[in-house]
């Protein structure tokens, strides 16, 4: 982890609803519905975190949920659609 690692945070202007089945509906560039790990990521980013930390913690959450996914791509997608923001370009 270095000082140049991007910091990820929830988009401060995201419009959000959390449904009772832990489905998260958000508006970034368009409307998105996140379930499961998406909600976990949203919860994780209550405070801004450096990208490597996010990836590490999400990998643990994915493993616990028995979900197989490329965490970095998943996070990048959420940055791309504007529901997460990064203070520098996302790490490839």
């Amino acid at each position, binding site marked *: 982890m270095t000082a140049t690692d991007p910091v990820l945070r929830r988009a401060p*202007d995201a*419009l959000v609803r959390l*449904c*009772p*089945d832990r489905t998260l*509906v958000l*508006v970034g560039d368009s*409307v998105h519905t996140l379930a499961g790990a998406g909600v976990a990521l949203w919860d994780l980013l209550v405070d801004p975190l450096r990208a490597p930390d996010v990836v590490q913690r999400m990998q643990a959450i994915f493993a616990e949920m028995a979900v197989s996914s490329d965490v970095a791509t998943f996070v990048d997608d959420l940055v791309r659609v504007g529901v997460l923001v990064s203070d520098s370009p996302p790490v490839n």
Partner: protein
Amino acid sequence: MTVRSEHLAAVTRDLPSAGAFPTHPLDALGWSSLTAEMERHRTVGYLSWAVADGEMPATDRQMEEIFERHALLMRHALVLEDETRTLARRLHPHGVVPVLLKGMAAAHLDHEDPSLRVFQDVDLLVRPDDVDSMVADLLLVGCTRDLPPRSEDWDRRFSKDIAITTPRGAEIDLHRTLVPGPFGFTLDLEELHADTVAVDLGGIAVKALCPERRVLAAALALSVGEPQARLAAALDLVGTVRHHGVDTAVVTDLSERWGVGALLAEALGWATDALGEAALPGDLRRWSVDRPTSRRERRIRNVYRSAGGSNTATLLAAPAGMSNWRDRADYLRWLVRPSPAYRHARAASARPREWRTGLSELVRRRP
């Protein structure tokens, strides 16, 4: 989220087990009837949370169905909020901050969680002097309106609201006043705008009415706003009182000054019947029981659809709420003989001829 007593009432009032959740999931017919009622009352959010909490028994299929429906309604709510945010960004440089009404305002201010309150359109209160420029601005950016105004000054002087459809298909109702007909004209619009609170809508500052005015707005929606009262409006009213400690004297004084005391009393009675006595403070309930309704108020109330009247009767009775003869004369003139643009647009639409249906309804209703 804990299911509170008024949530329980909201979900259970039409069930055979009225006042309590059933012990087993409803059969298909019962479930379908319950969800249809919840849709009509805009209380799907309450049912969804009651199912998630395990208070309302449901089969796996029913659970999946209600959660899916709820998520879909929340997507729609967020699209509407996004449209409102876009509109607010356009208006800010002109010094205009939109005032949210009804569902969107209540979702953010008066319910325990915004996901409890479902709404299907955007309702914004606009100062009469700002109505024309706001409509023109929206039409410039690709929004459309259903019909042109009945006269050049109709929107700012007489309209209840102007329904605008955005390019994304969202409906925005720009309200000059809160309700149609006579009561819409007895409200003091200057005073209505005089006390507002700030609301943050995804990083953009908008406004809503202050709690006392929101109670009155919910009471008007509950009594004469729709052909049939909606539980969501009662929950808005009760939620405002519960969460904001509304001053009973301020609410009741405002209602009397604005000529809608009888409607406030009626709405408080309806909310008490629907949600239980504990839902409202004793002094407000007592006021609603003790407040007499005059013959004139009753006569005017009866023109509204929710009391067996009709749209035509509501329109024709509107001058009863106006304070000067010039307004009455202008209103009736443009009501009966609207502009050619309005008549042509109406004829081109699939609507029935305006007065033929309405007047025959009135004639049929006469004893």
